[in-house]
């Protein structure tokens, strides 16, 4: 019994890791006023890059570094469209997600003659547990940074009252660029921890909504780092539970339908937003492009 509890904790932590990275990234971006549904796409790009580079270099850290770089680049493109050109953040985010789905499959086909998955990576070239610790570190750093550093304060003002930040002489666009790029870095790492930590290869659309689940966790966590991390752990737990409960008969004669456990995070988010389970308030300037007059 003890063993299975330990196992459960272990798998919860592992499954939560990509969510933690992405949720913290999403939180930073949204606190600065930029909606980031491109998380999903950036994660996917990161996952592919990590798998490909790890394969080529036979080194997981190199793969992760490449994933982070890739996340940075995709986030830069996204930032350019939504901050500089002021394209609609949701529309641009959807476009990035489409692009990521297409481009990863496209490159996969070119590099490995298969558009469904990359060759699988030997165990010794994958992460064993490092991403879990890193994710924990990221959460704590993000919390301290948001609370205690000037830049953290600027990010919060950029999302809450950008004009105030501007009139205090600090460029809103620059702060938002920084926040979106940082969210790209973290989402890239989230992708890497999917493909070279949880799995052994990149498979087509392997994020399967985890970017949105991270977004949900962030909302459930009221746009704050520690509660968002707890929400990730909760979602990770329900995910781990679902894997364990597959085919298990709990009551009656039918096995527990996994679908209902899968939709749990999304239902919780809806209930939270409706004020049924606690209140959650978005940053005031979320989604509004900033024009310096």
């Amino acid at each position, binding site marked *: 019994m003890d063993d299975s509890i330990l196992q459960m904790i272990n798998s919860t932590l592992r499954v939560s890791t990509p969510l933690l990275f992405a949720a913290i990234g999403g939180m930073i971006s949204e606190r600065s006023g930029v909606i980031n549904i491109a998380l999903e796409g950036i994660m996917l790009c990161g996952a592919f890059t990590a798998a490909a580079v790890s394969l080529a270099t036979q080194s997981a850290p190199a793969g992760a570094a490449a994933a982070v770089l890739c996340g940075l680049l995709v986030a830069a493109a996204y930032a350019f469209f939504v901050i500089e050109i002021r394209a609609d953040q949701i529309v641009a985010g959807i476009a990035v997600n489409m692009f990521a789905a297409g481009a990863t499959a496209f490159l996969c086909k070119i590099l490995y003659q298969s558009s469904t998955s990359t060759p699988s990576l030997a165990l010794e070239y994958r992460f064993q547990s490092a991403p879990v610790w890193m994710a924990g570190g990221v959460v704590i750093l993000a919390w301290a940074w948001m609370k205690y*550093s*000037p830049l953290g304060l600027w990010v919060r*003002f950029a999302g809450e*009252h950008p004009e105030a930040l501007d009139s205090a002489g600090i460029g809103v666009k620059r702060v938002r660029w920084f926040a979106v790029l940082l969210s790209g870095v973290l989402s890239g790492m989230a992708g890497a921890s999917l493909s070279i930590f949880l799995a052994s290869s990149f498979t087509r659309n392997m994020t399967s909504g985890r970017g949105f689940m991270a977004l949900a966790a962030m909302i459930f966590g009221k746009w704050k780092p520690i509660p968002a991390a707890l929400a990730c752990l909760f979602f990770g737990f329900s995910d781990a539970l679902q894997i364990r409960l597959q085919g298990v008969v709990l009551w009656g004669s039918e096995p527990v339908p996994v679908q209902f456990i899968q939709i749990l995070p999304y239902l919780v988010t809806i209930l939270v937003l409706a004020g049924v389970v606690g209140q959650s308030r978005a940053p*005031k300037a979320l989604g509004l492009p900033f024009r310096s007059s």
Partner: protein
Amino acid sequence: MSFAVEFKALTKTFNGVAANAGISLKVKKGSIHAIVGENGAGKSTAMKMLYGTYQPDSGEIWVDGKLWGGRSKPWSSPSDAIHCGIGMVHQHFMLAGTHTVLDNILLGVEPIRKEWKYLPIPNFLKGIDRTRAAKRLKEISQQYGMAVDLKPSVETLSVGLQQRIEILKLLYREASILILDEPTAVLTPQETSELFLHLRKLRDEGKTILIITHKLKEVTSLADRVTVFRGGRVVGEREIQETNEEDLATLMVGRKVNLHREPPPLPALRKPVLTLKNVSLGTVRKLRNLNLQVRGGEIVGISGVEGNGQSELLDLLIHPQHYSKILSGEIEILGRPSNALTTREIKSSGVGVIPEDRHKEGLLLDRPVRESFLLGLHRNAPFSRRGIVSEEAIDKNAKKAIREYDIRPAHAYARCGALSGGNQQKWIIAREFHQTPELLIAAQPTRGVDVGAIEFIHQKIIDARMAGSGVLLVSSELDEILDLSDRILVFYEGEIVGEFNRGEASEKVLGLRMGGAADL
């Protein structure tokens, strides 16, 4: 004589329209300098150029005897202005409500904790030394006598305190030139006099203060010198001793102003169109024990400083269904109890409303103005039949309205947002008067409207009264209230604290009552 600020022939155009045309202006060091003018006279534009928000097209700005900005040496941004010791309190406060007072003040000039100082990372990643900031702020607030609690989040504070935080923000940045844009618009009379006290103190400590306003009384009581703007130009500059309100008003408008008009004698009063009995609102008591009646053929004016319950009263009259749970007392609109009425029933039973904020509550700014005209009339014949809209009826009636109200541009397909304030207001009045209202609720009917249109709108309100309508006029302009109202009610903190018949009240008496002063 040294000047803190000097403008030399500043010009700024927007879309080919000159907002500032050759502005020249000198501000003495250590003085309070007022800039007055009507809406759109170019006051704010000039100040925003000084603050670096806008770049001038031509001309120069000198600060402390040095060339600081202009065509040849432009500001790049407000942050340059801040470095030069220029600070601005905007009309809409630059404060984030969810953050603490302290964080709002030290934003952009955060002190770094000493123990982090030598870490090889950029400063903006190090820890903020909030203790040190708080200590310095305490010193500053003691020096200028502006006490404030640093811990609470800004949204819990009164408007007056929020403004004080804005000023502290500038002092913390060691600004020597302070620009205040319409600082008293949202203040109660007490808060206003307190602000003036602080401003005089600041001047005596050597700060230079530029204050934008259109309230002439404040100019004469506060400023040392005043510059008058009209149509993007400077039309006069006076020492305060050598001028008075009439003189400034004439300069501002450009002709002898005679806004005082005597309405024709009272017509026979008809039956009540609006009755409030013991009306109170909710536990926060935004409205307290209101009793008032408006009868057909009279204008009842409600005066008061903004934020004393007028907006709540207006919303309550238009949307009674939202307040059914927290309302006590009785409201009768055109003889029917209002709690049984929906907004649509109120509007269609003969109530016309000129909303307080026409952009927010009256118009569809991004659509052709004919759709704004249709709004609210859309369920009535001839504008629609059996649920289908009649384009011809809209066009026909819009044309009629354009003729009758002298609206420009003279077609109904112009984008509503592109019209001037006066013409937008005329469209609203044309719409609300389409069926002569039995009850007219007119809130701030001439706000942001040019002088010519003001006279026209006042005439329309008087016409409605002569035709037998009952008018509830809510305005923060005392002149408007005094000229139009047959009876005047004064609002203070959600209560009626004074009632006067025409001719009984003076500006002074009203002003005192508005500030909550009891009998003299």
